[in-house]
């Protein structure tokens, strides 16, 4: 038994999550390779441009879009504040309606629960609805390792699975593939496919329909994720387009739903906000083709055996950070990916995680941690951004992603101990305190002109600045410093001329003329992308 003196001990931060939440290499290296893939960049550029336009059309037509964003943000924050009671209520309601609730501390535990439930049915196959949570925990790999075959039924997930590829986008995981590549994948991997199959998207979709039809009719177990779980009623929801979700949620005997604990909503009424925010932000549609809402088991309709697996896997670690927890408010719409200049160029694979793009860069390090000292890929993710802010403008629940990125950079720097960068900053501070030294240093920097090439840029700096110049070109220093120019005859003459001009034109520059550019005060949600292209 121990006795605490003074300050009570802070509870330990929860363990980080496991699964597909860490790449093999730091972002700059991965991005550098991906940038060399011209096909990828063309595919991504086309797709993100299309979806940005669609999203702006359907968000712009709602006069209360900003009010919906405010409500969505507040509902999620409220849910996080009351998470224990809401999860217990959800559990109670699902159980009352004939479902069974399981809890999983991490991905490995969730995988074991699902595999055990599948085995109990006697089935060796499952059909799957596209789900970020099961992708995150690597459920498919685990099921295969215990002799259960998972069939992805979302068209894009099917393409990714057939190609033994990885998803690269939250909404459209095969966005990095074009129609010709998809045609080839189908020809190579779908048994019995028509060898005359062409590359028309409608024909490719028809081939997938024919292939999966038989799986839907015959498979006894389905695994899904959930977009929302309503604590008040025990109602779960899957939002989709193709009807593969309805098939999986309706036809099998057993349904197993894996849901992150942050997906809980307090009230059924809250759906009125998210069913407007999500489709418009996600696919740029007024409403997605299909949304299924179900509560436990309904006699004579749908699966008669329903299991809900509530997943932590690092979410409580993120929750323990007052700033970073806002990332848990994410509803996985992917709007931030589509407006991000970094994502548009590097694609999703460079992030190394199930969650790519701006939200991935803040969510992944929080779910799985940043081990700064060990050259951890996750430590590089908060730097995978220009902090332009387009993601914040696009986010339907107003997650301030740029501020979260800066906070994570700060945490990463704090953790990383003494680095060359820190030493350099300390040296700079010492020099700037002494004017004579500072002037001398600036003169010395002028020597940098000698190492700059004909294009007036320096592409490689000596240590400790090599880290900076690895991913950026530095302008050659000017011939003369501002301080030197200011003290010169030329500088004095220029200042005098400017002062004379100011005196002469003073009356014309009344700052109170009241003229404004109306563009300054537009809707802030439609701001950002237009300037980004």
């Amino acid at each position: 038994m121990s006795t605490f003196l003074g300050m009570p001990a802070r509870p330990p931060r929860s363990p980080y999550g496991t699964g597909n939440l860490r790449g093999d290499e730091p972002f700059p290296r991965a991005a550098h390779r991906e940038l060399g893939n011209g096909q990828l960049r063309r595919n991504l550029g086309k797709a993100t441009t299309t979806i940005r336009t669609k999203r702006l059309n359907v968000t712009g037509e709602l006069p209360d879009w900003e009010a919906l964003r405010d409500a969505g943000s507040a509902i999620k924050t409220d849910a996080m504040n009351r998470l224990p009671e809401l999860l217990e209520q959800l559990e109670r309601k699902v159980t009352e309606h004939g479902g069974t609730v399981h809890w999983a501390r991490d991905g490995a535990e969730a995988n074991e629960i699902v595999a055990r439930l599948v085995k109990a049915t006697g089935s060796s196959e499952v059909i799957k609805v596209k789900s970020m949570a099961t992708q995150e925990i690597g459920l498919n790999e685990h099921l295969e390792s215990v002799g259960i075959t998972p069939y992805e039924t979302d068209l894009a997930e099917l393409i990714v699975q057939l190609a033994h590829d990885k998803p690269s986008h939250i909404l459209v995981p095969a966005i990095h593939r074009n129609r010709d590549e998809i045609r080839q994948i189908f020809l190579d991997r779908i048994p019995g496919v028509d060898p005359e199959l062409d590359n028309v998207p409608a024909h490719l979709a028809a081939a997938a329909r024919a292939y999966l039809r038989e799986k839907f009719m015959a498979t006894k177990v389905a695994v899904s994720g959930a977009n929302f779980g309503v604590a008040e009623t025990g109602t779960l929801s899957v939002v989709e387009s193709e009807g593969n979700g309805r098939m999986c949620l309706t036809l099998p005997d057993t349904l197993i739903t894996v849901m992150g604990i942050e997906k809980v909503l307090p009230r059924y009424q809250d759906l009125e906000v998210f069913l407007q925010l999500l489709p418009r932000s996600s696919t740029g549609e007024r409403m997605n083709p299909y949304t299924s809402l179900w509560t436990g088991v309904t006699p004579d309709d749908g699966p008669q055996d329903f299991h809900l697996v509530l997943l932590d896997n690092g979410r409580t670690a993120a929750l323990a950070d007052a700033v970073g927890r806002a990332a848990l408010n994410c509803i996985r719409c992917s709007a931030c990916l589509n407006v991000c200049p970094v994502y548009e160029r590097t694609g999703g694979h460079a992030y190394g995680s199930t969650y790519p793009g701006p939200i991935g860069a803040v969510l992944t390090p929080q779910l799985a941690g940043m081990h700064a000292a060990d050259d951890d890929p996750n430590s590089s993710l908060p730097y995978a951004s220009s902090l332009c802010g387009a993601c914040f403008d696009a986010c339907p629940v107003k997650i301030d992603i740029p501020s979260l990125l800066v906070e994570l950079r700060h945490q990463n720097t704090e953790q990383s101990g003494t680095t060359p960068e820190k030493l350099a900053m300390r040296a700079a501070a010492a020099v700037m305190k002494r004017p004579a030294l500072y002037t001398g240093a600036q003169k010395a920097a002028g020597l940098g002109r000698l190492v700059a090439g004909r294009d007036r840029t320096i592409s490689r700096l000596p240590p400790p600045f090599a880290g900076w110049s690895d991913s950026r070109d530095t302008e050659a220093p000017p011939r003369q410093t501002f301080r030197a120019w200011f003290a010169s005859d030329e500088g004095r003459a220029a200042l005098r001329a400017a002062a004379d001009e100011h005196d002469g034109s003073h009356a014309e520059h009344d700052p109170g003329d009241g003229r404004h550019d109306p563009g300054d005060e537009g809707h802030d949600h439609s701001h950002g992308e237009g300037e980004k292209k």
Partner: protein
Amino acid sequence: MTDARDTVLGRIRAALALAPTPATVVPRRYRTGRVLPDGERLALFTDRLLDYKAEVRPCTADRTAQVVADVLRDHGARRIGVPAGLDPRWLDAYDGDVSPDAADIPAPRLDALDAVVTASAAGCAETGTIFLDGSPDQGRRALSLVPDLHLCVVDLSSVEAGVPEVLARLVPERPTTLISGPSATSDIELERVEGVHGPRTLVVVIRKDV
């Protein structure tokens, strides 16, 4: 050893204690309680449905059977499924095969049907969405999913202006399906393709005077 449930709930409570945040009031300043005249709701609902490539057939209640028969004939539907609670008068003018649904009919047999005819629980004009809730005139979810043509009869009086208004009409615990046009995918180069796994054709018969 504590179980996973206690561990996860304990971690959440510890996290909230580490980083407490003030209680939040949800501002609901978005539009609710909107009421639109019949003509405007019909026009808006129709416009949205057509945008999704659904087929729209407005009619009066006394013409229901004729319109249903016309649609089924136009699409060559010779064998149809119906929920057990569907108003039988809606099929008076139809001369094809009608199979009333039952819970023990396996899905592959539904796949052999050309079409399904159902009623609906509600509609949303602004988003062009139809709501099914498993009532006897709508049937179990599999019935309105597996056949390739879904003919859905919607009464204009059940069509609300927007999402908040229509959700307020629903019973949360009922299995509910929101349908906005035929099934679709944009997974290949974000090019929209109508018709994947759900019904590839959606026909909405809107009864203006009900």
